[in-house]
């Protein structure tokens, strides 16, 4: 079986970091004017040397995104199925060591949440869980999918890493996309933040996209959690991962997200915060490097930031999100995974998209595929 490890092992963190920090103005200009941009160009666009070129990068990013995706923004809603979790992740509100009320939605509750989400017009949904293999296992997900598949045109999941056969089963049951964020590609730093549970296994997580690709899932979403460590170097590794996956699983689409650590009950704050300007640079660098990549911006970001970034390279937004199981209707008072910044309703977000001259797209898939 293919494995990203062979590629990953050829790169040393310190060398990549040094290579990015020593990129020059000339490297940035070469990258800006290239027809096809390589990973070396991506490094240049990520580098501190590219900061003075941010406006130019934003213009190119906007043009490339409009050419590929048009004046459209895809909308989706997350549905948190469970906050049970056996992992300790020091930045997360659902971490095992937090004494919060745990909840996993029943079939009836899933249906109740579905009705509330559908009421706003959503056709694309993202199912989110923690990692609690005794209760929130593949059979639980299959039961949820049985309820959800007739209700939504497109279903994505963000759950614990699974085996290839399990992904095949979920694919057959209607899962279109799987999101699995490495959080950080720095193995030692990863250990510091992930101190207990199955998630402590850096390499099992690292190989997960290979298993998803081999299972024939339509779309794989990657990302690093911004704030854990140097975002520039981490993002290079994420791009390296995407580059590898695109070559090996050529029938698969790819998306990338940029979660910045948000305040959460009892959790760590970001040790390496990423500024708005840095996040814009990162998004533009990704777009300049990869024109087909879907770029998703969640409600972790503020209303003001989202309204601007939607025309600079983003393709997908969540809206009206609740990050607690039952948050839409069943039990709105349970503790959320992280605090939402953009609290507008889906209709208000769609109107803001329209005001920028873009169309909010609610349906861009059909459940029969």
């Amino acid at each position, binding site marked *: 079986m293919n494995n990203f490890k062979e590629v990953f092992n050829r790169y040393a963190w310190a060398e990549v970091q040094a290579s990015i920090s020593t990129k020059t103005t000339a490297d940035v200009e070469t990258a800006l004017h290239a027809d096809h941009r390589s990973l070396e160009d991506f490094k240049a666009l990520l580098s501190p040397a590219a900061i003075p070129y941010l406006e130019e990068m934003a213009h190119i990013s906007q043009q490339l995104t409009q050419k590929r995706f048009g004046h459209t923004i895809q909308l989706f809603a997350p549905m948190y199925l469970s906050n049970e979790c056996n992992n300790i992740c020091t930045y997360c509100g659902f971490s095992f060591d937090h004494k919060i009320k745990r909840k996993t939605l029943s079939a009836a509750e899933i249906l109740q949440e579905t009705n509330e989400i559908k009421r706003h017009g959503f056709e694309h949904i993202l199912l989110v869980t923690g990692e609690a293999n005794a209760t929130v296992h593949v059979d639980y997900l299959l039961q949820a999918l049985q309820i959800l598949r007739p209700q939504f045109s497109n279903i994505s999941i963000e759950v614990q890493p699974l085996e290839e056969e399990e992904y095949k089963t979920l694919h057959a049951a209607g899962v279109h996309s799987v999101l699995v964020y490495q959080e950080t590609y720095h193995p030692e730093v990863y250990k510091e933040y992930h101190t207990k549970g199955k998630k402590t296994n850096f390499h099992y997580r690292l190989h997960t996209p290979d298993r998803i690709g081999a299972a024939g899932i339509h779309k794989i979403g990657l990302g690093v959690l911004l704030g854990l460590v140097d975002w520039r170097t981490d993002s290079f590794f994420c791009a390296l991962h995407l580059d590898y996956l695109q070559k090996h699983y050529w029938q698969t689409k790819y998306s990338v997200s940029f979660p910045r650590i948000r305040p959460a009950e009892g959790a760590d704050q970001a040790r390496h915060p990423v500024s708005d300007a840095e996040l814009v640079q990162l998004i533009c660098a990704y777009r300049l490097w990869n024109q087909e990549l879907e770029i998703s911006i969640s409600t972790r970001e503020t209303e003001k930031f989202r309204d601007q970034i939607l025309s600079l390279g983003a393709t997908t937004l969540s809206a009206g999100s609740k990050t607690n199981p039952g948050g839409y209707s069943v039990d709105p008072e349970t503790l959320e995974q992280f605090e939402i910044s953009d609290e507008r309703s889906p209709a208000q977000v769609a109107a803001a998209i329209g005001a920028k001259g873009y169309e909010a797209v609610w349906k861009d898939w*059909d459940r029969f595929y």
Partner: protein
Amino acid sequence: MEPLIIADKSFQSRLFMGTGKFGSPAQMRDAVLASGTELVTVALKRVDRETDTDALLSHLCHPHIHLLPNTSGARTAKEAVFAAQLAREALETHWIKLEIHPDPRYLLPDPVETLKATEELVRLGFVVLPYIHADPVLCKRLEDAGTAAVMPLGAPIGSNKGLRTFDFLEIILAQSKVPVIIDAGIGAPSDAAKAMEMGADAVLVNTAIAAAGDPVRMATACRLATEAGRMAYEAKLAKQNNRANASSPLTAFLHEQF
């Protein structure tokens, strides 16, 4: 100008349009109307099949506009055939633009699955318009399978790169028994004009219009260019000639009286 006949329909306009990438359904409608097109393609995956208030479709309700559903999203012949059947039900047309691109990056069509799906769809009574590479042999195979037209690409979808497959399009046009619609890659009105001048039966344009600064004016420009190109084709272009005519012909002596 001569009307274009495909299956049981006759078209005055030889410009077909795509409906994706517009900033709003109203902008899409205005561009479609400005283009003068009579055939617009709609991705089945974008259509809400369960309500009759779909925003995209409600903006295309004009008596001169025919809908051409497409199977975008299908990766195999099986998926495409199923999509076509759903489209027939939802949009009440047996016309289908067959798109099978298993590669989501460049959206290049799969020739093997496309041929298989064409055979099956023809058997099921569809009017099939397959999106394909500019592959002359595949075009002949599709003709044999009963395709209503062929839709070879000028360049990858959305690339706006123009007629990069020019030499192969020439071969296809020279030998095709069914209408040839050049689809994908047409990035400017001049590309549409060029395609029509070389004898294409129609062109399909989407990104060049939808991603333009002013989509409605660009739709008008594409209409004019398509008409100009077709008119030039019907008027028969003067031949290009790279050399001047020799003033002293080398074989003139043959006609001289000795």
